[in-house]
């Protein structure tokens, strides 16, 4: 038999493929293998070392921006890759293709689809999707595959269920043969301690490392009970060195490692299975290999999903496991980093609280661990290889049975569609945030964080950060108030060309406007307090973009406290603004919050014969409000009435026929019975 493996760019795609290949090689020593990958990616380093032949083709990730240049480049590279892959397929002539997804597998799978269509190639395709949410490529080639192996049965919903087999994720044998006492002995930990194993994968995770160091001082009070095992990982890049950064932060936090026995740090655990064996709680990322290994070890976990994972699959995995009561999830939060960019973090307080909850409640830990142990298949590898052989022999898997509709709605990944989803969801509960279940609200708010922290923040159209800002408002996410205020206040200027054409700051005008109009307006002056009020006053005075000033004037008018001198003063100043929409908004706002009739009236009188009728219109409305609020007296303006110029280049058309039709339509609706019985009654 000839097997072709493809998939990659990340370990999550490559290692399962290699595990399957190893198993096949064990069963069929004379099988031929070929791995198809992309130059310069992880597979180029890993695959030859495991004794498999590697062929390279071209491919590149699907661009997440809609720039035509990126799309063209993608299309060109992929076309070349598909042609190369066709040559590979025609020369190697495999009987079976095992694709684990990722852009690396795109050329082979598309080439295979084309060759099959023209009858040049007869090969069975097995697509493997370990995550709860299929990647873009597997979504695309799902219909092409003869069989799709999924890790979570939830993922089966995305494919033709007749061809889906739930196979789980291949686990290393070493993890399956765990023994708690051996683990503890290896790591020299007393049996009565509660072991918390914290790690962010082999490379390590900045968020987890920093969160843990922040949490340690809080955990200190439990130092008699617990042992924290911390694997920092090996990342050494220009902006983050896992080991050095952690050491520096430990020092700042005043934790002396040499004198404590409850905190043990290492760079990397060669035999991670001992740590699993010894642990009572794991803090980890949401990748499938980690989750599966934690699952088979039947330990409770605190999952911190990577917010930048493709299609946010880590969070979806985590949520799926949380739904089964097998873990708790801590989502990343958006925050300002030291570099002046928006990044993500998990606060040490939250992490410490989550850990302490397990430490204090062994029953809960036991229950969660038991629930976790049920989820992963332990025979996944055999299962996959059996499926592969079944596929070659023409056997069909037992059809997957899932309850419909899904117990957990799949949220759209497209930012704008997600926004619409949230709006509908909030409409259902009349915008009462409290009515949403806690874990749903946490997830939705995490989406706000994720979009706020997205690096694609001036992405077309309007970017993901824009979506984050709107979500902050809709979900009344007051924890992010500071961040939104910073977006409004930040004065880092845009590039020279942009400024020359009319741009201003790095946070573009529309983003700042949305910060006011969506986020700040909904959080509200009452909730936001002094910083919010100060930022709004500042924006009204100094923001160079008219829509920001207009939105600010509107918010101040609607939510400002009547009699607030500063607000009134700022709005008065805004009457001299260059942009008409700002002035009209300010006039309207003064009608609501103006209190100083003496000063206000002369300013408004200046608009009585203004060229722009909208100024006059707002002035009239404002005067009316001021009268109602007893700020001014009728006698003050009785002589003004025939001074105000009332001609206007605007009118509202009235269509008598349309009006009558509308009246008829409402009457028809009120006079309508479901089965038309009124007419029948009249007839009888």
């Amino acid at each position, binding site marked *: 038999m000839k097997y072709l493996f493809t998939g990659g760019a990340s370990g999550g795609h490559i290692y399962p493929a290699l595990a399957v290949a190893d198993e096949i090689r064990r069963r069929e020593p004379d099988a031929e293998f070929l791995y198809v990958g992309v130059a310069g990616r992880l597979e180029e380093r890993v695959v030859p070392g495991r004794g498999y032949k590697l062929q390279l083709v071209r491919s590149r990730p699907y661009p997440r921006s809609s720039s035509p240049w990126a799309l063209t480049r993608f299309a060109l590279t992929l076309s070349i890759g598909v042609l190369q892959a066709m040559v590979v397929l025609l020369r190697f002539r495999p009987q079976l293709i095992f694709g684990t997804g990722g852009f690396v597998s795109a050329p082979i799978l598309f080439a295979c689809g084309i060759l099959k269509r023209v009858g040049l190639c007869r090969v069975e395709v097995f697509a493997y999707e370990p995550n709860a949410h299929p990647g873009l490529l597997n979504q695309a080639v799902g219909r092409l595959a003869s069989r799709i192996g999924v890790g979570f049965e939830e993922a089966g919903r995305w494919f033709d269920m007749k061809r889906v087999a739930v196979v789980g994720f291949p686990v290393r044998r070493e993890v399956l043969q765990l023994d708690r006492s051996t683990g503890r002995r290896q790591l020299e930990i007393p049996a009565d301690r509660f072991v918390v194993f914290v790690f962010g994968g082999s490379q390590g995770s900045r968020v987890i490392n920093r969160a843990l160091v922040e949490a340690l001082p809080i955990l200190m009070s439990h130092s008699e009970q617990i042992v924290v095992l911390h694997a920092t990982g090996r990342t050494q890049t220009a902006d983050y060195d896992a080991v050095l950064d952690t050491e520096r932060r430990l020092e700042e936090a005043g934790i002396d490692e040499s004198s404590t026995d409850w905190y043990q740090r290492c760079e990397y655990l060669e035999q991670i299975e001992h740590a699993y064996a010894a642990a009572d709680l794991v803090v980890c990322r949401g990748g499938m290999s980690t989750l599966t290994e934690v699952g088979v070890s039947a330990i409770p976990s605190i999952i911190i999903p990577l917010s930048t994972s493709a299609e946010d699959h880590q969070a979806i995995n985590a949520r799926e496991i949380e739904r089964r009561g097998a873990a708790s999830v801590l989502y990343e939060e958006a925050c300002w980093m030291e570099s002046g960019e928006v990044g993500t973090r998990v606060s040490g307080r939250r992490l410490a609280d989550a850990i302490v909850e397990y430490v204090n409640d062994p029953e809960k830990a036991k229950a969660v661990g038991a629930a976790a142990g049920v989820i992963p298949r332990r025979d996944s590898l055999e299962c996959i290889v059996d499926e592969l052989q079944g596929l070659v022999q023409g056997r069909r898997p037992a059809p997957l049975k899932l309850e419909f509709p899904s117990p957990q709605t799949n949220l759209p990944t497209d930012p704008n569609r997600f926004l619409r989803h949230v709006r509908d969801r909030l409409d259902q509960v009349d915008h009462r945030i409290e009515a949403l279940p806690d874990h749903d609200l946490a997830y939705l708010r995490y989406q706000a964080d994720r979009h706020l922290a997205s690096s694609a923040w001036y992405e077309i159209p309007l970017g993901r950060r824009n979506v984050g800002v709107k979500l902050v408002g809709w979900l009344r996410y007051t924890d992010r108030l500071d961040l939104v205020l910073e977006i409004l206040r930040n004065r880092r200027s845009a590039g020279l060309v942009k400024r020359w054409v009319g741009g201003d700051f790095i946070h573009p005008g529309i983003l700042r406007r949305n910060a006011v109009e969506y986020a700040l307006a909904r959080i509200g002056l009452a909730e936001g307090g002094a910083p919010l009020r100060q930022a709004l006053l500042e924006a009204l005075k100094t923001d160079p973009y008219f829509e920001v000033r207009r939105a600010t004037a509107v918010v101040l008018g609607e939510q400002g406290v009547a009699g607030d001198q500063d607000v009134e003063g700022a709005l008065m100043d805004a009457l001299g603004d260059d942009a008409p*929409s700002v002035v009209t908004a300010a006039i309207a706002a003064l009608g609501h919050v103006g209190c100083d009739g003496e000063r206000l009236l002369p300013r408004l009188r200046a608009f009585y014969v203004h060229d722009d009728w909208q100024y006059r219109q707002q002035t009239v409305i404002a005067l009316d409000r001021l009268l109602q609020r007893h700020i001014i007296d009728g006698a003050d303006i009785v002589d003004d009435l025939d001074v105000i110029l009332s001609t206007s*280049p605007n009118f509202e058309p009235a269509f008598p026929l349309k009006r009558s039709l509308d009246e008829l339509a409402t009457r028809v609706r009120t006079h309508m019975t479901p089965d038309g019985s009124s007419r029948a009654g009249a007839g009888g």
Partner: protein
Amino acid sequence: MALVAPAQGDRRLLYYLGTYLQDHIAALSFLRLLDSISFRALGGAITAMLFTITFGGRIILALYSSGRRDKSRSYDHFPVTGKGATKTYGGPLVVASIVTSVLLWGKLHNPFTLICLFAVFWFAGLGYIDDHLKVRHGASDHGLSETAKLALQLLYGVGFGLFFVVEGWSPMPPGLATQLFVPFFKTPIIDLGWGYVPFIVFTVIAISNSVNIADGIDGLAIVPVAFAVAVYAVFAYVSSHARISEFLIFPFVPGAEEVAIICSIVFGACLGFLWFNSYPANVIMGDTGSMALGGLVGTIVVLVKQEFLFIIVGGIFVTEALSVVIQEKVGIKWLGRRFFLSAPIHHHFQSRGLADTKIVIRFWIVAGILALAGLATLKIR
């Protein structure tokens, strides 16, 4: 009496009938008038106008009953006139009147006529698909995708460009097709060679889309189109006339008089359409109409070899299109800010509180002045 076969090159219906009658009945010899370009132009315009006015009412009712109605997008911040009566897509009306009149008055074997007819059908078809999808989905945002529209326009542009530039196919005298003429200059400023094809593609796409964009308020697009084709009728007439073209120093293009006739027919059709489309409209062009007119004007502009003149004569359309490009591409997509309250620019004026009628008539005034300025370039160069 056997019908006399028409002379080669004169296969137009009225001419056919006219020659037959004037040859056989002495009293009808005044039908020689049918040879006169100005008479045919006038006749074509009046036919198109009367056709529209006569059949307009019935066609509108028929279209309305078949469900071709406007679903106007609801804007949050300003009233859309569509909240009045529901309007009908009347594009087919304009197209029918133009085609009928051309069949009656045009020389059907003339390459200029054929190109123009093809342009009308191509763009009307394109617009019709768009309208049809919008009607079917019941939303103005769900028409033909922008890419598909552009691809079809591109296809036409490339085809037309090649036809126009390749010697042997081209209806232009040798060596003239690829010369670039610019207003205020007597002689061509540059010979673009094959580069003329992309230039044609750009011109056609830009003009057809800009007419489409301008068609936003009742009567806003149709009158500037009428003004523009009137000016181009004059230019086409000038270059088709051996003596006048010599006098005004224009390249002599035999056969271009058919473009003048088509221009005047379009002028007539526009007036006829305005009959129904004037504020408050009971029928709007829809994409069928605006695309057909835009595509046709884009083609005429190239055939007359006065592409740059459109920047003056069609200033309204250029402004509308530029406002969209500035607002959407430069402003919102790149800089993240707006330059207008809303785009295209007539929506900006709506937001600023001008009544639709006011905007439309002011645009007409500007279009009229621009048309006169365009005409002035006949002599000022």
